[in-house]
Protein backbone atom coordinates (compact mmCIF):
# COMPACT_ATOMS: atom_id res chain seq x y z
CA UNK A 1 0.00 0.00 0.00
CA UNK A 2 2.41 2.65 -1.21
CA UNK A 3 1.72 6.35 -0.77
CA UNK A 4 2.41 9.17 -3.19
CA UNK A 5 4.18 12.39 -2.33
CA UNK A 6 0.99 14.25 -3.27
CA UNK A 7 -1.05 12.30 -0.73
CA UNK A 8 1.48 13.12 1.96
CA UNK A 9 1.55 16.79 0.98
CA UNK A 10 -2.25 16.93 1.06
CA UNK A 11 -2.15 15.69 4.66
CA UNK A 12 0.56 18.20 5.53
CA UNK A 13 -1.61 20.99 4.12
CA UNK A 14 -4.74 19.95 5.99
CA UNK A 15 -2.78 19.35 9.19
CA UNK A 16 -3.44 15.62 9.43
CA UNK A 17 0.02 14.31 8.54
CA UNK A 18 1.61 12.04 11.15
CA UNK A 19 5.21 13.17 11.60
CA UNK A 20 7.76 11.41 13.83
CA UNK A 21 11.45 11.93 14.52
CA UNK A 22 13.88 9.29 13.26
CA UNK A 23 14.78 8.09 16.75
CA UNK A 24 11.12 7.13 17.35
CA UNK A 25 10.87 5.03 14.21
CA UNK A 26 12.51 1.78 15.41
CA UNK A 27 10.00 1.29 18.23
CA UNK A 28 7.05 2.27 16.01
CA UNK A 29 8.07 -0.38 13.49
CA UNK A 30 8.56 -3.05 16.12
CA UNK A 31 5.17 -2.19 17.59
CA UNK A 32 3.07 -1.85 14.44
CA UNK A 33 5.08 -3.92 12.00
CA UNK A 34 6.34 -2.55 8.70
CA UNK A 35 2.92 -2.39 7.03
CA UNK A 36 1.41 -0.77 10.08
CA UNK A 37 4.18 1.82 10.28
CA UNK A 38 3.79 2.63 6.59
CA UNK A 39 0.09 3.27 7.14
CA UNK A 40 0.58 5.24 10.34
CA UNK A 41 3.60 7.46 9.60
CA UNK A 42 3.77 10.02 6.78
CA UNK A 43 7.04 11.78 7.43
CA UNK A 44 10.21 10.97 9.38
CA UNK A 45 12.37 13.94 10.35
CA UNK A 46 16.11 13.59 10.83
CA UNK A 47 18.63 15.97 12.34
CA UNK A 48 22.27 16.48 13.10
CA UNK A 49 24.24 19.22 14.80
CA UNK A 50 27.99 19.25 14.59
CA UNK A 51 31.15 20.74 13.16
CA UNK A 52 30.77 21.24 9.43
CA UNK A 53 34.02 22.83 8.35
CA UNK A 54 33.11 23.03 4.71
CA UNK A 55 30.51 25.76 5.11
CA UNK A 56 30.25 29.39 4.08
CA UNK A 57 28.13 32.03 2.45
CA UNK A 58 27.86 34.17 -0.66
CA UNK A 59 27.34 37.82 0.23
CA UNK A 60 26.39 40.77 -1.93
CA UNK A 61 27.11 44.18 -0.42
CA UNK A 62 25.51 46.47 -3.05
CA UNK A 63 27.48 49.06 -4.98
CA UNK A 64 29.50 51.83 -3.36
CA UNK A 65 29.85 55.39 -4.66
CA UNK A 66 32.20 55.72 -6.52
CA UNK A 67 31.98 52.00 -7.40
CA UNK A 68 34.63 49.43 -6.59
CA UNK A 69 35.41 45.97 -7.94
CA UNK A 70 36.64 44.34 -4.77
CA UNK A 71 39.69 42.15 -5.32
CA UNK A 72 40.93 41.65 -1.79
CA UNK A 73 38.30 41.48 0.91
CA UNK A 74 38.33 41.14 4.68
CA UNK A 75 35.39 40.79 7.06
CA UNK A 76 36.50 41.53 10.61
CA UNK A 77 39.97 40.84 9.23
CA UNK A 78 39.04 37.38 7.97
CA UNK A 79 39.99 36.90 4.34
CA UNK A 80 37.01 36.44 2.01
CA UNK A 81 37.14 35.42 -1.65
CA UNK A 82 37.71 38.27 -4.10
CA UNK A 83 37.34 36.50 -7.43
CA UNK A 84 33.62 37.00 -8.07
CA UNK A 85 33.31 40.69 -8.96
CA UNK A 86 32.36 43.29 -8.03
CA UNK A 87 30.69 43.48 -4.65
CA UNK A 88 30.19 39.75 -4.20
CA UNK A 89 32.25 37.53 -1.99
CA UNK A 90 32.30 34.08 -0.41
CA UNK A 91 33.23 33.82 3.23
CA UNK A 92 34.40 30.36 4.28
CA UNK A 93 34.04 29.06 7.84
CA UNK A 94 37.61 27.93 8.52
CA UNK A 95 39.57 31.01 7.45
CA UNK A 96 41.39 32.58 10.37
CA UNK A 97 41.41 36.27 11.18
CA UNK A 98 44.69 37.88 10.19
CA UNK A 99 44.79 40.17 13.21
CA UNK A 100 42.59 38.81 15.99
CA UNK A 101 43.35 35.74 18.05
CA UNK A 102 43.39 32.66 15.85
CA UNK A 103 40.24 31.54 17.59
CA UNK A 104 38.25 34.02 15.46
CA UNK A 105 37.48 32.98 11.93
CA UNK A 106 34.98 32.95 9.09
CA UNK A 107 32.55 30.90 11.17
CA UNK A 108 32.50 33.68 13.76
CA UNK A 109 31.83 36.30 11.08
CA UNK A 110 28.84 34.25 9.94
CA UNK A 111 27.57 33.80 13.49
CA UNK A 112 28.06 37.51 14.25
CA UNK A 113 26.10 38.46 11.13
CA UNK A 114 23.24 36.19 12.18
CA UNK A 115 23.35 37.56 15.73
CA UNK A 116 22.77 41.04 14.24
CA UNK A 117 26.24 42.41 15.00
CA UNK A 118 28.09 44.97 12.89
CA UNK A 119 31.00 43.60 10.85
CA UNK A 120 33.86 45.64 9.44
CA UNK A 121 34.21 45.24 5.68
CA UNK A 122 37.54 46.22 4.20
CA UNK A 123 38.34 45.85 0.51
CA UNK A 124 40.98 46.83 -2.02
CA UNK A 125 41.03 47.04 -5.78
CA UNK A 126 43.55 47.89 -8.46
CA UNK A 127 40.93 50.19 -10.04
CA UNK A 128 39.60 50.35 -13.60
CA UNK A 129 37.82 52.87 -15.81
CA UNK A 130 34.47 51.35 -14.87
CA UNK A 131 35.35 50.73 -11.19
CA UNK A 132 37.70 53.58 -10.22
CA UNK A 133 37.63 53.14 -6.47
CA UNK A 134 40.66 51.52 -4.83
CA UNK A 135 39.73 51.17 -1.16
CA UNK A 136 36.74 50.87 1.05
CA UNK A 137 36.21 50.41 4.79
CA UNK A 138 32.71 50.29 6.23
CA UNK A 139 30.58 48.70 8.91
CA UNK A 140 27.75 46.48 7.80
CA UNK A 141 25.05 44.30 9.30
CA UNK A 142 23.18 41.39 7.81
CA UNK A 143 20.18 43.63 7.10
CA UNK A 144 22.39 45.91 4.97
CA UNK A 145 23.26 43.13 2.53
CA UNK A 146 21.28 42.37 -0.62
CA UNK A 147 21.93 38.67 -0.30
CA UNK A 148 23.50 36.43 2.29
CA UNK A 149 23.10 32.95 0.86
CA UNK A 150 24.70 30.15 2.76
CA UNK A 151 26.04 27.48 0.43
CA UNK A 152 27.86 24.71 2.20
CA UNK A 153 29.92 22.53 -0.13
CA UNK A 154 30.11 19.55 2.21
CA UNK A 155 27.58 18.95 4.99
CA UNK A 156 25.91 16.08 6.77
CA UNK A 157 28.30 13.20 6.20
CA UNK A 158 26.56 9.86 5.91
CA UNK A 159 29.12 8.26 8.18
CA UNK A 160 31.93 9.35 10.48
CA UNK A 161 35.00 7.66 11.85
CA UNK A 162 35.87 7.93 15.52
CA UNK A 163 39.31 8.84 16.82
CA UNK A 164 41.81 7.76 19.41
CA UNK A 165 45.53 8.30 19.79
CA UNK A 166 48.07 5.60 20.63
CA UNK A 167 51.04 7.96 20.58
CA UNK A 168 52.79 9.34 23.67
CA UNK A 169 51.55 12.91 23.22
CA UNK A 170 48.27 14.72 23.53
CA UNK A 171 47.07 15.64 20.03
CA UNK A 172 44.84 18.58 19.17
CA UNK A 173 42.87 17.72 16.04
CA UNK A 174 39.61 18.40 14.28
CA UNK A 175 38.47 15.37 16.24
CA UNK A 176 39.12 17.33 19.44
CA UNK A 177 41.65 16.70 22.18
CA UNK A 178 43.04 13.18 21.95
CA UNK A 179 44.79 12.03 25.09
CA UNK A 180 47.96 9.91 24.80
CA UNK A 181 47.99 6.10 25.07
CA UNK A 182 44.37 5.85 23.89
CA UNK A 183 43.25 7.87 26.91
CA UNK A 184 39.95 8.73 25.26
CA UNK A 185 37.85 8.24 22.15
CA UNK A 186 36.02 10.99 20.26
CA UNK A 187 33.29 10.64 17.66
CA UNK A 188 30.85 12.66 15.60
CA UNK A 189 27.40 12.30 14.15
CA UNK A 190 23.89 11.78 15.42
CA UNK A 191 23.54 8.01 14.87
CA UNK A 192 19.90 7.07 14.38
CA UNK A 193 19.00 10.71 13.63
CA UNK A 194 21.67 11.20 10.94
CA UNK A 195 19.86 12.22 7.70
CA UNK A 196 21.81 10.10 5.20
CA UNK A 197 21.81 7.04 7.46
CA UNK A 198 18.02 7.06 7.05
CA UNK A 199 18.26 7.05 3.25
CA UNK A 200 21.51 5.30 2.36
CA UNK A 201 20.33 4.54 -1.19
CA UNK A 202 19.70 8.24 -1.95
CA UNK A 203 16.14 7.53 -3.04
CA UNK A 204 14.58 10.52 -1.35
CA UNK A 205 17.46 12.83 -0.48
CA UNK A 206 18.70 14.58 -3.59
CA UNK A 207 18.77 17.90 -5.46
CA UNK A 208 15.92 20.26 -4.65
CA UNK A 209 14.72 18.44 -1.55
CA UNK A 210 13.64 20.85 1.23
CA UNK A 211 15.71 20.80 4.42
CA UNK A 212 16.28 22.58 7.71
CA UNK A 213 19.59 24.46 7.69
CA UNK A 214 20.74 26.51 10.64
CA UNK A 215 17.15 27.29 11.59
CA UNK A 216 16.12 28.31 8.06
CA UNK A 217 14.18 26.42 5.42
CA UNK A 218 16.70 25.49 2.75
CA UNK A 219 17.39 22.77 0.25
CA UNK A 220 19.83 20.21 -0.98
CA UNK A 221 21.81 21.53 -3.95
CA UNK A 222 23.24 18.17 -4.90
CA UNK A 223 26.11 15.92 -3.99
CA UNK A 224 28.60 17.48 -1.60
CA UNK A 225 32.31 17.70 -2.26
CA UNK A 226 34.16 14.51 -1.44
CA UNK A 227 30.85 12.61 -1.81
CA UNK A 228 31.88 8.98 -1.66
CA UNK A 229 28.64 7.10 -1.43
CA UNK A 230 30.15 3.78 -2.52
CA UNK A 231 32.04 3.67 0.77
CA UNK A 232 29.04 5.03 2.73
CA UNK A 233 30.70 8.41 3.04
CA UNK A 234 28.20 10.44 1.05
CA UNK A 235 27.90 14.20 1.64
CA UNK A 236 25.47 16.94 0.66
CA UNK A 237 25.82 20.43 -0.69
CA UNK A 238 23.22 22.56 1.07
CA UNK A 239 21.85 26.08 0.87
CA UNK A 240 19.53 28.47 2.72
CA UNK A 241 19.07 32.18 3.36
CA UNK A 242 21.18 33.43 6.27
CA UNK A 243 18.51 36.02 7.11
CA UNK A 244 16.22 33.27 8.31
CA UNK A 245 18.82 31.49 10.42
CA UNK A 246 19.20 31.55 14.17
CA UNK A 247 22.20 31.18 16.47
CA UNK A 248 20.25 28.42 18.21
CA UNK A 249 21.11 26.21 15.26
CA UNK A 250 24.38 27.66 14.04
CA UNK A 251 27.43 28.24 16.24
CA UNK A 252 30.99 29.23 15.51
CA UNK A 253 33.61 27.12 17.22
CA UNK A 254 37.33 26.94 17.61
CA UNK A 255 39.13 23.63 17.83
CA UNK A 256 42.34 24.19 19.75
CA UNK A 257 45.36 23.55 17.55
CA UNK A 258 43.18 23.15 14.45
CA UNK A 259 41.29 26.37 13.91
CA UNK A 260 37.81 27.82 13.50
CA UNK A 261 34.88 25.76 12.34
CA UNK A 262 31.12 26.08 12.16
CA UNK A 263 28.62 23.95 14.05
CA UNK A 264 25.52 23.60 11.88
CA UNK A 265 22.14 22.11 12.52
CA UNK A 266 20.92 20.20 9.46
CA UNK A 267 17.67 18.26 9.25
CA UNK A 268 15.97 16.49 6.36
CA UNK A 269 12.36 15.27 6.24
CA UNK A 270 11.82 11.89 4.63
CA UNK A 271 8.39 11.07 3.16
CA UNK A 272 7.31 7.54 4.06
CA UNK A 273 6.27 6.31 0.62
CA UNK A 274 6.79 2.57 0.81
CA UNK A 275 8.08 -0.36 2.85
CA UNK A 276 11.64 0.34 1.76
CA UNK A 277 11.48 3.79 3.44
CA UNK A 278 10.03 2.22 6.58
CA UNK A 279 12.89 -0.27 6.74
CA UNK A 280 15.56 2.34 6.19
CA UNK A 281 14.20 4.83 8.69
CA UNK A 282 13.91 2.10 11.32
CA UNK A 283 17.71 2.14 11.60
CA UNK A 284 18.94 2.12 15.21
CA UNK A 285 22.15 3.32 16.84
CA UNK A 286 23.17 -0.34 17.12
CA UNK A 287 23.04 -0.72 13.34
CA UNK A 288 25.45 2.10 12.53
CA UNK A 289 29.11 1.11 12.65
CA UNK A 290 31.91 3.51 13.56
CA UNK A 291 35.56 2.70 12.93
CA UNK A 292 37.84 4.08 15.60
CA UNK A 293 41.02 5.24 13.90
CA UNK A 294 44.43 5.96 15.33
CA UNK A 295 45.26 9.64 14.90
CA UNK A 296 48.67 8.96 16.42
CA UNK A 297 49.65 7.90 12.90
CA UNK A 298 50.12 11.03 10.75
CA UNK A 299 49.07 9.50 7.46
CA UNK A 300 46.01 9.58 5.23
CA UNK A 301 45.39 5.89 5.86
CA UNK A 302 45.11 5.76 9.61
CA UNK A 303 44.86 2.26 11.06
CA UNK A 304 41.49 1.16 12.43
CA UNK A 305 41.86 0.22 16.08
CA UNK A 306 38.39 -1.19 16.59
CA UNK A 307 34.87 -1.16 15.24
CA UNK A 308 31.97 -0.10 17.45
CA UNK A 309 28.48 1.33 16.98
CA UNK A 310 26.64 4.44 18.18
CA UNK A 311 24.78 2.61 20.91
CA UNK A 312 28.11 1.65 22.44
CA UNK A 313 29.67 5.07 21.95
CA UNK A 314 26.69 6.79 23.55
CA UNK A 315 27.08 4.85 26.80
CA UNK A 316 30.12 7.06 27.41
CA UNK A 317 32.58 4.17 27.56
CA UNK A 318 33.91 1.55 25.22
CA UNK A 319 36.44 -1.20 25.60
CA UNK A 320 39.74 -0.78 23.85
CA UNK A 321 42.38 -3.51 24.13
CA UNK A 322 40.79 -4.82 27.30
CA UNK A 323 40.58 -1.42 28.97
CA UNK A 324 37.63 0.85 29.52
CA UNK A 325 38.06 4.14 27.67
CA UNK A 326 35.76 7.14 27.95
CA UNK A 327 34.12 8.55 24.84
CA UNK A 328 33.25 12.11 23.89
CA UNK A 329 30.98 13.28 21.14
CA UNK A 330 32.01 16.38 19.22
CA UNK A 331 28.56 16.94 17.82
CA UNK A 332 25.57 17.58 20.02
CA UNK A 333 22.89 14.89 20.22
CA UNK A 334 20.67 17.21 22.25
CA UNK A 335 20.73 19.80 19.48
CA UNK A 336 20.32 17.15 16.79
CA UNK A 337 17.10 16.14 18.53
CA UNK A 338 16.09 19.78 18.68
CA UNK A 339 16.63 20.08 14.91
CA UNK A 340 14.55 16.95 14.19
CA UNK A 341 11.78 18.10 16.55
CA UNK A 342 11.67 21.64 15.16
CA UNK A 343 11.47 20.26 11.64
CA UNK A 344 8.67 17.95 12.77
CA UNK A 345 6.81 20.97 14.15
CA UNK A 346 7.24 22.88 10.87
CA UNK A 347 5.72 20.03 8.91
CA UNK A 348 2.89 19.47 11.39
CA UNK A 349 2.13 23.19 11.09
CA UNK A 350 2.08 22.93 7.31
CA UNK A 351 5.08 25.23 6.91
CA UNK A 352 7.13 22.86 4.77
CA UNK A 353 5.85 20.91 1.80
CA UNK A 354 7.93 17.96 0.61
CA UNK A 355 9.08 16.99 -2.83
CA UNK A 356 11.08 14.25 -4.46
CA UNK A 357 14.60 14.92 -5.76
CA UNK A 358 14.63 16.79 -9.06
CA UNK A 359 17.87 14.98 -9.69
CA UNK A 360 19.12 11.98 -7.75
CA UNK A 361 22.60 11.73 -6.28
CA UNK A 362 24.99 9.06 -7.48
CA UNK A 363 24.74 6.26 -4.90
CA UNK A 364 27.92 4.51 -6.07
CA UNK A 365 30.49 7.24 -6.35
CA UNK A 366 34.02 6.68 -5.11
CA UNK A 367 36.22 9.55 -3.99
CA UNK A 368 39.77 9.75 -5.33
CA UNK A 369 42.93 10.84 -3.54
CA UNK A 370 44.87 13.79 -4.80
CA UNK A 371 47.03 13.23 -7.84
CA UNK A 372 50.44 14.38 -6.78
CA UNK A 373 52.88 15.08 -9.56
CA UNK A 374 55.79 16.13 -7.45
CA UNK A 375 57.58 13.93 -5.01
CA UNK A 376 57.04 14.72 -1.33
CA UNK A 377 60.30 16.04 0.14
CA UNK A 378 61.86 13.54 2.53
CA UNK A 379 64.06 14.13 5.54
CA UNK A 380 67.04 12.51 3.77
CA UNK A 381 67.15 15.37 1.29
CA UNK A 382 67.90 18.01 3.89
CA UNK A 383 69.29 16.23 6.96
CA UNK A 384 72.88 16.69 8.03
CA UNK A 385 74.77 13.45 7.71
CA UNK A 386 77.75 14.68 9.65
CA UNK A 387 76.52 14.45 13.19
CA UNK A 388 78.58 14.97 16.31
CA UNK A 389 77.50 12.56 19.07
CA UNK A 390 78.56 11.89 22.63
CA UNK A 391 78.62 8.72 24.76
CA UNK A 392 76.39 8.55 27.81
CA UNK A 393 79.31 7.86 30.14
CA UNK A 394 81.41 10.77 29.01
CA UNK A 395 81.88 13.67 31.37
CA UNK A 396 80.20 17.03 31.04
CA UNK A 397 83.26 19.02 29.90
CA UNK A 398 83.66 16.62 26.99
CA UNK A 399 80.09 17.31 25.95
CA UNK A 400 80.69 21.05 26.26
CA UNK A 401 83.78 20.75 24.05
CA UNK A 402 81.86 18.85 21.40
CA UNK A 403 79.02 21.33 21.43
CA UNK A 404 81.47 24.15 20.85
CA UNK A 405 83.46 22.36 18.20
CA UNK A 406 80.44 21.06 16.35
CA UNK A 407 78.80 24.49 16.45
CA UNK A 408 75.57 22.86 17.46
CA UNK A 409 73.10 23.09 20.31
CA UNK A 410 72.16 19.43 20.30
CA UNK A 411 74.25 16.33 20.84
CA UNK A 412 72.65 12.94 20.35
CA UNK A 413 73.78 10.64 23.16
CA UNK A 414 74.73 7.03 22.38
CA UNK A 415 75.14 4.02 24.63
CA UNK A 416 77.92 1.42 24.44
CA UNK A 417 76.23 -0.30 21.50
CA UNK A 418 75.98 2.93 19.58
CA UNK A 419 72.20 3.17 20.00
CA UNK A 420 70.52 6.50 20.60
CA UNK A 421 69.53 6.87 24.26
CA UNK A 422 69.19 10.61 24.75
CA UNK A 423 69.99 14.15 23.74
CA UNK A 424 71.94 16.87 25.53
CA UNK A 425 71.57 20.52 24.70
CA UNK A 426 73.72 23.53 25.45
CA UNK A 427 71.15 24.41 28.11
CA UNK A 428 71.51 21.01 29.85
CA UNK A 429 75.27 21.40 29.90
CA UNK A 430 75.06 24.94 31.24
CA UNK A 431 72.78 23.74 34.04
CA UNK A 432 75.20 20.94 34.84
CA UNK A 433 78.06 23.41 35.05
CA UNK A 434 76.04 25.53 37.45
CA UNK A 435 75.45 22.56 39.76
CA UNK A 436 78.61 20.49 39.32
CA UNK A 437 78.11 18.55 42.56
CA UNK A 438 75.21 16.46 41.30
CA UNK A 439 75.83 16.10 37.62
CA UNK A 440 79.05 14.69 36.30
CA UNK A 441 78.21 12.51 33.35
CA UNK A 442 76.23 13.12 30.22
CA UNK A 443 73.63 10.54 31.22
CA UNK A 444 72.87 12.56 34.39
CA UNK A 445 71.69 15.56 32.43
CA UNK A 446 70.46 14.26 29.10
CA UNK A 447 66.83 14.15 28.02
CA UNK A 448 65.90 10.49 27.70
CA UNK A 449 62.61 10.83 25.96
CA UNK A 450 64.00 11.72 22.54
CA UNK A 451 61.77 12.70 19.66
CA UNK A 452 63.31 11.29 16.47
CA UNK A 453 62.69 11.15 12.76
CA UNK A 454 63.67 8.76 9.98
CA UNK A 455 65.39 9.47 6.72
CA UNK A 456 62.34 8.38 4.70
CA UNK A 457 59.83 10.45 6.68
CA UNK A 458 58.22 13.37 4.81
CA UNK A 459 59.76 16.70 5.84
CA UNK A 460 56.35 18.13 6.79
CA UNK A 461 55.83 15.44 9.39
CA UNK A 462 59.25 16.11 10.88
CA UNK A 463 58.46 19.85 10.86
CA UNK A 464 55.20 19.20 12.72
CA UNK A 465 57.17 17.21 15.34
CA UNK A 466 59.52 20.16 15.83
CA UNK A 467 56.53 22.50 16.18
CA UNK A 468 54.45 20.27 18.40
CA UNK A 469 57.28 19.64 20.88
CA UNK A 470 58.74 23.15 20.54
CA UNK A 471 62.21 21.76 19.85
CA UNK A 472 64.79 22.75 17.28
CA UNK A 473 66.45 19.50 16.21
CA UNK A 474 65.57 15.85 15.60
CA UNK A 475 68.11 13.01 15.54
CA UNK A 476 67.56 10.83 12.46
CA UNK A 477 67.62 7.13 13.35
CA UNK A 478 67.59 3.91 11.38
CA UNK A 479 65.67 0.72 12.16
CA UNK A 480 68.29 -0.27 14.76
CA UNK A 481 67.95 3.10 16.49
CA UNK A 482 71.44 4.11 15.39
CA UNK A 483 71.76 7.84 14.95
CA UNK A 484 72.67 8.36 11.29
CA UNK A 485 72.09 12.09 10.93
CA UNK A 486 70.46 15.12 12.49
CA UNK A 487 67.75 17.45 11.25
CA UNK A 488 67.82 21.04 12.50
CA UNK A 489 64.86 23.39 12.24
CA UNK A 490 67.13 25.63 10.19
CA UNK A 491 67.55 22.85 7.60
CA UNK A 492 63.87 23.22 6.67
CA UNK A 493 64.77 26.49 4.97
CA UNK A 494 66.85 24.60 2.39
CA UNK A 495 63.72 23.50 0.62
CA UNK A 496 62.78 27.03 -0.30
CA UNK A 497 66.18 28.39 -1.26
CA UNK A 498 66.88 29.10 -4.92
CA UNK A 499 68.57 26.03 -6.33
CA UNK A 500 67.07 23.90 -3.57
CA UNK A 501 64.45 21.34 -4.46
CA UNK A 502 61.31 23.45 -4.12
CA UNK A 503 58.15 21.84 -2.85
Amino acid sequence: MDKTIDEINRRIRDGSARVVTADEMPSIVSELGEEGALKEVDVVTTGTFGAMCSSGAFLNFGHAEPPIKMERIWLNDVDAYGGIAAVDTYIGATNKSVTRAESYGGAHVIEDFIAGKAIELRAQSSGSDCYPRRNITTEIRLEDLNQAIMVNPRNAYQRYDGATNTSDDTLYTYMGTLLPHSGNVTYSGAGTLNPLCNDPGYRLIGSGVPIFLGGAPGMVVGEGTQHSSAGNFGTLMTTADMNEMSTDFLRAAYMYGYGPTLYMGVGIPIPVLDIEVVRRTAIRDEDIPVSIKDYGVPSRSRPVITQVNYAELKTGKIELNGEEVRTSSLSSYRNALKVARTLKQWIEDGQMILNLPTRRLDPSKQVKSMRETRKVALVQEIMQRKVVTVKEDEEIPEAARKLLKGETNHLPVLNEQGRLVGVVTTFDVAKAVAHPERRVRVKDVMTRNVITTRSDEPVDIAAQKLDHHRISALPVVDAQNQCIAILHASDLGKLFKPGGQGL
Partner: protein
Amino acid sequence: MKLLVKLSHKSRPIIAEVVKDTGILINVDRARSDAHEGEEALVDVPDEFCRLISERMRSLGAHVSILDEGVRHDRDECVDCGSCISVCPKEVFSFNSEWELQVETKRCILCGRCVIACPHQALSLNDV
Protein backbone atom coordinates in the same frame (compact mmCIF):
# COMPACT_ATOMS: atom_id res chain seq x y z
CA MET B 1 37.06 22.55 50.13
CA LYS B 2 39.92 23.52 47.86
CA LEU B 3 42.73 25.81 48.93
CA LEU B 4 45.37 27.34 46.75
CA VAL B 5 48.61 27.52 48.71
CA LYS B 6 51.52 29.64 47.50
CA LEU B 7 54.89 29.11 49.06
CA SER B 8 57.99 31.15 48.62
CA HIS B 9 61.23 29.38 47.76
CA LYS B 10 62.86 29.51 51.15
CA SER B 11 59.87 28.27 53.11
CA ARG B 12 59.68 25.06 55.09
CA PRO B 13 57.67 22.00 54.09
CA ILE B 14 54.50 23.70 55.26
CA ILE B 15 51.92 21.17 54.11
CA ALA B 16 53.71 18.32 55.84
CA GLU B 17 54.09 20.40 59.00
CA VAL B 18 50.41 21.28 59.12
CA VAL B 19 49.41 17.66 58.64
CA LYS B 20 51.73 16.62 61.43
CA ASP B 21 50.53 19.39 63.76
CA THR B 22 46.83 19.03 63.28
CA GLY B 23 46.54 15.39 62.35
CA ILE B 24 44.17 16.41 59.56
CA LEU B 25 44.82 14.76 56.22
CA ILE B 26 45.37 17.06 53.28
CA ASN B 27 45.04 15.85 49.74
CA VAL B 28 47.35 17.51 47.21
CA ASP B 29 45.42 17.65 43.92
CA ARG B 30 48.02 19.47 41.95
CA ALA B 31 51.41 21.09 42.58
CA ARG B 32 53.61 23.28 40.52
CA SER B 33 57.07 24.64 40.99
CA ASP B 34 58.31 27.66 39.14
CA ALA B 35 61.81 29.12 39.21
CA HIS B 36 60.52 32.66 39.67
CA GLU B 37 57.21 32.41 41.45
CA GLY B 38 57.98 29.69 43.94
CA GLU B 39 55.71 26.75 44.59
CA GLU B 40 52.00 26.48 44.31
CA ALA B 41 49.76 23.67 45.44
CA LEU B 42 46.09 23.00 45.10
CA VAL B 43 44.96 21.05 48.14
CA ASP B 44 41.71 19.48 49.21
CA VAL B 45 40.80 19.71 52.91
CA PRO B 46 37.71 18.65 54.86
CA ASP B 47 35.25 21.58 54.91
CA GLU B 48 35.06 21.78 58.72
CA PHE B 49 38.83 22.25 59.09
CA CYS B 50 39.25 24.71 56.27
CA ARG B 51 39.68 27.74 58.52
CA LEU B 52 41.98 26.07 60.96
CA ILE B 53 44.24 24.81 58.22
CA SER B 54 44.42 28.05 56.29
CA GLU B 55 45.25 29.99 59.46
CA ARG B 56 47.96 27.53 60.37
CA MET B 57 49.47 27.72 56.90
CA ARG B 58 49.38 31.51 56.85
CA SER B 59 51.14 31.65 60.20
CA LEU B 60 53.89 29.54 58.64
CA GLY B 61 54.33 32.07 55.85
CA ALA B 62 52.18 30.67 53.04
CA HIS B 63 49.73 32.66 50.99
CA VAL B 64 46.39 30.84 51.12
CA SER B 65 43.24 31.48 49.15
CA ILE B 66 40.01 29.55 49.20
CA LEU B 67 38.65 28.35 45.89
CA ASP B 68 34.96 27.89 46.27
CA GLU B 69 34.42 27.28 42.59
CA GLY B 70 35.96 24.88 40.13
CA VAL B 71 35.69 25.22 36.39
CA ARG B 72 33.13 27.76 35.18
CA HIS B 73 30.54 26.73 32.67
CA ASP B 74 28.84 29.27 30.42
CA ARG B 75 25.41 27.79 29.58
CA ASP B 76 24.82 30.24 26.72
CA GLU B 77 27.97 29.25 24.86
CA CYS B 78 27.60 25.52 25.56
CA VAL B 79 26.02 23.41 22.82
CA ASP B 80 25.98 20.16 24.86
CA CYS B 81 28.40 18.39 22.57
CA GLY B 82 30.24 16.54 25.30
CA SER B 83 33.79 17.09 24.04
CA CYS B 84 34.78 17.95 27.61
CA ILE B 85 33.53 14.67 29.07
CA SER B 86 36.32 12.28 28.14
CA VAL B 87 39.27 14.61 28.74
CA CYS B 88 38.46 15.39 32.38
CA PRO B 89 40.48 13.30 34.83
CA LYS B 90 37.88 13.81 37.58
CA GLU B 91 34.66 12.97 35.74
CA VAL B 92 33.28 16.45 36.40
CA PHE B 93 31.09 16.29 33.27
CA SER B 94 28.24 14.00 32.33
CA PHE B 95 24.98 14.02 30.39
CA ASN B 96 21.56 13.74 31.95
CA SER B 97 18.84 11.72 30.25
CA GLU B 98 18.02 14.69 28.01
CA TRP B 99 21.62 14.85 26.74
CA GLU B 100 22.16 18.08 28.60
CA LEU B 101 25.61 18.63 30.10
CA GLN B 102 25.85 18.38 33.88
CA VAL B 103 28.85 19.93 35.63
CA GLU B 104 29.93 18.91 39.11
CA THR B 105 32.35 21.71 39.77
CA LYS B 106 33.12 20.46 43.27
CA ARG B 107 35.24 17.63 41.93
CA CYS B 108 37.29 19.88 39.67
CA ILE B 109 41.03 20.12 40.31
CA LEU B 110 41.49 23.01 37.87
CA CYS B 111 43.82 21.10 35.55
CA GLY B 112 42.60 23.11 32.55
CA ARG B 113 42.26 20.25 30.06
CA CYS B 114 38.58 20.84 29.38
CA VAL B 115 39.13 24.55 28.80
CA ILE B 116 41.27 23.70 25.78
CA ALA B 117 39.04 20.86 24.64
CA CYS B 118 35.78 22.84 24.55
CA PRO B 119 35.16 23.92 20.93
CA HIS B 120 32.79 26.66 22.06
CA GLN B 121 34.92 28.37 24.69
CA ALA B 122 32.21 27.68 27.24
CA LEU B 123 34.60 26.60 29.99
CA SER B 124 37.04 28.77 31.92
CA LEU B 125 39.02 28.82 35.11
CA ASN B 126 39.22 31.57 37.65
CA ASP B 127 42.55 33.30 37.53
CA VAL B 128 44.48 31.37 40.10
